[in-house]
């Protein structure tokens, strides 16, 4: 009972944040609303028994990506009165598209054979997933784990090279 109420409260928090992102007039407020959405998503991960994912969501998305987003907004020169070169097609086509996608998603939701893996969630909820992930990193997924390091290195060097250009002049 409390569990369900808590779930709906966090889901409402997440969706409200998403509405804030979409409907806010000010792009900075949109970015701050995104924080609510990302925090809510972390909460939903907890409900799925994915504790490590929730922690990473906080660490990387709320702690890192959001700061990056805010900096990107602050860095963009006069972001509020930028001339939009490719305008949106308008409300009615958008409504039609959203309606179509919404119906498709609702159909998928209703038709999907939901597998309630109670024991997996219960196991994760009991002892947490962090140890299992670490064990997998050192065991069968050692190569992907080490490759992730190279991917990160590539991302780092690439991002620096790309964003450095503007400073030179």
């Amino acid at each position: 009972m409390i569990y369900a109420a808590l779930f709906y409260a966090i889901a409402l928090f997440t969706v409200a944040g998403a509405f804030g992102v979409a409907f806010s007039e000010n792009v900075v407020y949109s970015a701050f609303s995104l924080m609510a959405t990302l925090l809510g998503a972390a909460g939903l991960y907890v409900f799925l028994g994915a504790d490590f994912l929730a922690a990473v969501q906080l660490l990387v998305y709320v702690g890192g990506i959001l700061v990056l987003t805010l900096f990107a907004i602050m860095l963009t020169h006069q972001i509020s009165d930028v001339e939009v070169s490719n305008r949106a097609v308008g409300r009615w086509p958008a409504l039609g598209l959203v309606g179509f996608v919404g119906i498709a998603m609702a159909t998928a939701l209703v038709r999907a054979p939901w597998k309630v893996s109670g024991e997996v969630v219960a196991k994760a909820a009991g002892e947490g997933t962090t140890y299992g992930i670490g064990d997998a990193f050192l065991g069968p997924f050692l190569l992907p784990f080490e490759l992730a390091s190279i991917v990160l290195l590539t991302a780092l060097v690439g991002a620096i090279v790309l964003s450095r250009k503007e400073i030179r002049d």
Partner: protein
Amino acid sequence: MNFQFANVLVYILLGAITAALMLGLGWLLRPSNPERRKLSTYECGEPPSGSAWINFNIRFYLVALIFVVFDVEVAFVYPVVVAFRDYVLQGKGLLVLAEILFFVGILFVGLVYVWAKRDLEWVKQVRTAA
């Protein structure tokens, strides 16, 4: 595990209640006496000028980019550290330590790169051929 997250929830709720209580008490107790200059943004006693949302230096962005990469690295290393003890007990401690050091070492190359290229310095001095 969920019980531990209940702790987190209680912590968040207590924080929110404390903040709301403090602000609410202040709001109830203080006299309401608004004045134009009181309502203006406090800028060290100076009359505020211009918008508060100025363009940041691109340095912030560069440092934030580097931070995100190492943030993800921490996210990768963290579960490995949790499982590390059992590998030590199995006598594979050195091997696993080498694996972790290899992972960190590759990213250390990235740190050396940004350091050597002076991207971490606040004012970057590009040496021009004299």
